[in-house]
């Protein structure tokens, strides 16, 4: 006991006071008094044999078991919840309540036992904490793990049990878990840790609290530690919730446990709790039960590095990071429904047996090309096959070296990739390591990318269009082990503290390299590669992860999208099948994601002369020069680049026109492009077919339409033609933008909407039914990175053995199999008369001569919303106002024609807010909130 008393000696005498357990006061927000109970627990000895001591301890706990029994619900199992320091069982109130509610709402449901059954939730107050007994003696980790076992013994708890811990309750719950394999069915964790890696410093706030001079004062004598912890919520906790968390800790005599907990953190190797923590941490590696980690990354204590450590020990765990949430993740995020959803999906009886979607008619019909017949071809296939070729592989029209176009042969590219790959291996880059690429498009990026994938490293690619803040979040979340960048990228990485070993693409002066934390350069990697005789490691498997690509972040924080080698290889196949890009094709690479795949397809690609960070700087002359340089037949551009190319066409010479006449197809990808712009570009390339694809980061190239296709889809007069497609009783709005037919290996289905706007319909390709667009292709994403719930939602209703992705887009198929996009799921307007999709009504509003651009949004509560049109006029308005009567009447009449929906109001704005990246996507959710405020009588400010 000496060690225990040593711990407690550092604390004020109040910490040694004893007090009995009590029930919490009533009236704490969200806490149901009926769930509280006190339990007497005989204490067993820690000595071998574990004999019962002549001691009982009284615990306070929340327990919905009696309530479930009174409803006659079959109990599926128990979730054993353990809080950390300085909280108490109050933190689990939502889980207890929702587990109970879920049981109540399932009453009468004609479903199997798993649906009728419910999870019992037991949330304990640890001894010396919350409203449990104050024992007066310090309780180190091993004691606390045993305390929990004593409690479950006293309760006679039977399996299956899923543990759930937060903060230091995580270690304790995992201690119980590894000691009770016969009962254990799963483990769930909120921000916690089981190991303090020697190479990382102890987090500063903890170091401070642990200082002998501070510990007692901060944790026991004053409520400072408690107050600091409760201040970590994002957004801040309400005063009533804060008071509820503090309720059991109102005096120094009540706070002894808080101080003892902090003193028990085994930061030093010699700490008495270190062996127990190490025992738990190591035993975790043998756990095979399902595991879930719900994580708030904005945690000054348990940062992402502790999550990495846990994932390393439980590699099969499902992980969901709530971007923007912190240490109090249970207050910052909807953790409770997610945990219950995970239990149903992974642990409950019958979980894992995927619920087969009912397939109607031809829904199971195949894509144009059976994906199973397409052979896997590694991304570096042509780098191997053409390693002796002196044909051109890459041309960089304006390399950083500045002296005219740089031409790279297949021989050189192949050698460089091999050298860099070997160099990377020799500086410690391992298969499965993540490498963040902050390199602008060009020969360097191509070489580095293929080197990384060849050695099995995972490339992380985030678009600079995310902005510095979004990019920082993305890179941090992707937790790269290495960062390869040019100067601006590395400077940002340094300034913002991005993790990972830093590698520069160019040589810097030594002082700058030191400042940026740069250890290696591309040149030094190549030198290493030469010196070691270029022996490459074994190739990664097709199923290994190859890349994490970040979404644009136009709808919430950017998500990391994970692709395997096979899936990326099939993106290449899709480009080949759709646009004929293959061995020997000359390709102008003005749109990065597809252009990077040029070498994988054996194509000869050229990067035109442009400021790569600003696509709208690309001129027509630069495109013509790039085409001429490699006799290109295919041109990939972004919409912004395309607009400037058309705008600068006057500068083209006769020779330029001749070069452009050789182009056979061009593609504008990344955002919708108008028919006039596409037509103007087509005039510059008279021999080419103009394409615009439909896709997303999660499914590049899902559908495609040509300029002729767009014209064929346009109604001859008015915009009502597409309405005739709509099935009776389907969603109002219809219309939409035609994005063409599915690409060769893609299947597109619709999951119909219900009256509440939820996509609950079975996957179907019945024409005229509006619903969520769901896609399947061999090149659809594998999964989202550390977003378990988002990933599960994106695959909801998938057919067994198939990979489907719910796009979040809403639309319908027509009788010709063409896909029409009607908006985003989160922009649906749910009126009392049914669901309305926004794009169709917007097109009708835009058909009014005075209107330049329009958004149609809902105001009011979902289910009884009304429609509002927000318009930019051709003659721009100077301020926000209600539309003049003539305009309002015209807009209303246009939308309501042929039984269309009616509008509550028409607002005129000088300018609709759009995303920075494409200047085309209108954030209708934000606009809806704005319109709701104005139309409720709020200030008439700019949206």
């Amino acid at each position, binding site marked *: 006991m000496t060690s225990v008393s040593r711990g407690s000696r550092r604390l004020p005498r109040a910490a040694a006071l004893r007090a009995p357990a009590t029930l919490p006061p009533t009236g704490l927000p969200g806490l149901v008094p009926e769930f509280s109970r006190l339990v007497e627990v005989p204490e067993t000895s820690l000595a071998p044999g574990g004999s019962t001591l002549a001691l009982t301890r009284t615990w306070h706990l929340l327990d919905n078991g009696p309530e479930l029994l009174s409803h006659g619900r079959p109990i599926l199992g128990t979730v054993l919840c353990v809080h950390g320091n300085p909280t108490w069982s109050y933190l689990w109130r939502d889980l207890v309540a929702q587990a109970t509610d879920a049981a109540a709402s399932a009453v009468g449901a004609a479903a199997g036992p798993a649906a009728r059954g419910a999870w019992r939730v037991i949330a304990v107050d640890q001894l010396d904490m919350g409203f449990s007994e104050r024992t007066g003696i310090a309780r180190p980790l091993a004691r606390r793990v045993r305390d929990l076992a004593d409690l479950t013994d006293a309760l006679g708890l039977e399996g299956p049990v899923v543990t759930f811990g937060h903060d230091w309750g995580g270690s304790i719950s995992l201690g119980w878990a590894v000691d009770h394999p016969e009962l254990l069915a799963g483990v769930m964790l909120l921000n916690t840790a089981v190991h303090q890696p020697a190479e990382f410093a102890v987090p500063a706030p903890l170091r401070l609290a642990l200082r002998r001079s501070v510990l007692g004062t901060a944790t026991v004598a004053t409520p400072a530690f408690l107050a600091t912890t409760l201040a970590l919520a994002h957004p801040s906790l309400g005063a009533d919730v804060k008071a509820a968390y503090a309720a059991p800790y109102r005096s120094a005599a009540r706070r002894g446990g808080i101080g003892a907990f902090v003193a028990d953190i085994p930061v030093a190797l010699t700490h008495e709790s270190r062996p127990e923590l190490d025992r738990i941490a190591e035993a975790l590696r043998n756990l095979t039960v399902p595991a879930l980690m719900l994580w708030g990354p904005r945690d000054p204590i348990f940062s992402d590095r502790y999550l990495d450590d846990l994932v390393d020990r439980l590699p099969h765990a499902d992980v969901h990071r709530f971007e923007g949430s912190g240490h109090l993740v249970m207050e910052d995020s909807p953790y409770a429904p997610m945990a219950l959803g995970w239990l149903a999906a992974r642990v409950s009886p019958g979980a894992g047996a995927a619920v087969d979607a009912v397939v109607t008619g031809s829904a199971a019909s195949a894509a144009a090309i059976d994906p199973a017949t397409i052979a896997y071809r590694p991304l570096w296939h042509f780098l191997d096959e053409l390693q002796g070729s002196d044909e051109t592989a890459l041309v960089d029209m304006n390399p950083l070296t500045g002296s005219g176009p740089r031409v790279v042969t297949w021989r050189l590219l192949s050698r460089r990739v091999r050298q860099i790959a070997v160099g990377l291996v020799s500086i410690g880059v391992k298969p499965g390591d993540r490498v963040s690429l902050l390199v602008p498009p060009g020969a360097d990026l191509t070489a580095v990318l293929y080197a990384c994938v060849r050695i099995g490293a995972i490339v992380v690619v985030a678009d600079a269009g995310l902005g510095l803040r979004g990019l920082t979040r993305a890179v941090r979340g992707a937790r790269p082990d290495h960062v390869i960048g040019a100067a601006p990228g590395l400077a940002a990485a340094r300034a913002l503290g991005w993790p990972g070993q830093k590698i520069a693409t160019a040589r810097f002066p030594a002082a700058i390299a030191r400042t940026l934390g740069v250890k290696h350069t591309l040149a030094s990697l190549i030198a290493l590669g030469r010196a070691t005789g270029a022996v490459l490691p074994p190739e990664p498997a097709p199923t290994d992860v190859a890349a994490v690509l970040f979404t644009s972040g136009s709808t919430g924080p950017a998500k990391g999208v994970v692709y395997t080698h096979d899936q990326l290889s099939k993106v290449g196949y899709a480009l080949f099948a759709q646009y004929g890009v293959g061995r020997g094709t000359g390709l102008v690479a003005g749109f990065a994601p597809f252009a990077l795949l040029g070498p994988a397809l054996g194509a000869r690609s050229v990067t035109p002369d442009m400021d790569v960070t600003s696509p709208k700087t690309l001129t027509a002359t630069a495109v013509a020069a790039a085409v001429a340089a490699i006799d290109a037949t295919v041109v990939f551009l972004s919409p912004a680049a395309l607009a400037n190319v058309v705008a600068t066409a006057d500068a083209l010479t006769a020779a330029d026109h001749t070069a452009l006449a050789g182009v056979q197809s061009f593609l504008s990808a990344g955002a919708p492009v108008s028919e006039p712009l596409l037509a103007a570009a087509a005039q510059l390339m008279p021999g080419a077919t103009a394409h615009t694809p439909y896709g997303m980061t999660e499914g590049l190239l899902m559908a495609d339409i040509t300029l002729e296709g767009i014209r064929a889809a346009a109604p001859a007069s008015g915009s009502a033609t597409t309405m005739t497609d709509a099935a009776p009783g389907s969603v109002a709005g219809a219309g939409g933008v035609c994005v063409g037919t599915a690409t060769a290996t893609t299947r597109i289905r619709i999951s119909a909407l219900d009256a509440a706007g939820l996509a609950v319909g079975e996957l179907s390709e019945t024409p005229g039914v509006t619903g969520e667009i769901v896609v399947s292709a061999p090149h659809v994403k594998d999964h989202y990175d550390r977003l378990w719930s988002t990933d599960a939602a994106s695959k909801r209703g998938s057919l067994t053995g198939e990979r489907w992705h719910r796009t979040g887009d809403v639309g319908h198929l027509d009788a010709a199999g063409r896909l029409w996009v009607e908006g985003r799921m989160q922009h649906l307007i749910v009126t*009392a008369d049914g669901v309305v999709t926004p794009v169709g009504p917007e097109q009708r509003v835009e058909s009014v001569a005075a209107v330049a651009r329009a958004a149609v949004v809902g*105001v*009011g*509560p979902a*289910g*009884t*919303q*009304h429609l509002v049109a927000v318009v930019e006029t051709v003659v721009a308005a100077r301020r926000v*106002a*209600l539309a003049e*009567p003539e305009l*309002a009447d015209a807009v209303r009449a246009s939308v309501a024609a042929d039984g269309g929906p*009616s509008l*509550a*109001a028409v*607002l005129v704005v000088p300018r609709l807010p759009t995303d920075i990246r494409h200047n085309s996507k209108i954030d209708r959710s934000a606009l809806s909130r704005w319109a*709701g405020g*104005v*139309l*409720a*009588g709020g200030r*008439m400010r700019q949206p």
Partner: protein
Amino acid sequence: MKVLVTGASGFLGRAVAAELVAAGHTVTCFQRRPSGVADATDALGSITDAARVAEAVAGHDAVVHLAAKVSLAGDPAEFEAVNVGGTRTLLAAAADAGASRFVYVSSPSVAHAGASLVGAGALPADPKRARGDYARTKALAELLALAADSPALRVVAVRPHLVWGPGDTQLVARIVERARVGRLPLLGHGAALIDTTYVDNAASAIRAALDRVDTVHGQAYVITNGEPRPVAELLAGMCRAAGVRPPAWRVPASVARGAGSLIEAAWRLRPGVDEPPMTRFLAEQLSTAHWFDQRRTRADLQWMPAVTLDEGFARLERSYRGA
């Protein structure tokens, strides 16, 4: 069915009585002045006169109660006597006479306290929160009426919001009159969404409530067109229909609320002959959103408004042209 309609000389009361006559009911109209409703019998008297009320109710199967003191100002005791006392008297008389159905015509203002209403449901009447003597006494009366609901006498409350149409001497006539003399300002930017009720729709909803009282008794329903529009468009629509220039000058909403409070206070000290030109209640009504969730109303009453807002404006215009 024999139906007694109180307050049938009023704008809505007359429409309800006519609707019930058209539906084939035998209708008696009870109020102080002749109702002028074709094919209905008048029984004249005051709702505060218990003996006259009992006499009038006798022999009727159902009562539709609209009689009330509707005003933005006046003697609180008079509101109490007519709106609360009158309802209590009528409920007792209906029960004594063996009537089985009672529709109490109320107002959404019984449940609201000035905040903006966006897709609101029908909350319970709350006299403590209601603004002004009218809303407070209507709330008290609605509580009385619903408390009287019993298997013998089924009671339902309906709350039409801002009833208007041809022949309306309250809302439309006042707006048009003020606009004609240039004394109608817009409060704030005029974009606040307001849901109103065209008079024929209010009448058909009340008839539906009477028909469906066996299933909807004991409850309160807000009645509207379900077509919220910016208040400026509503005022302009009424003005255009009447051939007068819509309001073009604006008063900040906060100023109007302040002025309304002052004028109310002054009116209390020295009551004028007409109603005060602005009250705080009116200022709030005209500068914040007031629209309602109509799903429950339409489903339970099995009723849909037959006249759209735009059709209503067209009918209003025809009535002004004809006048």
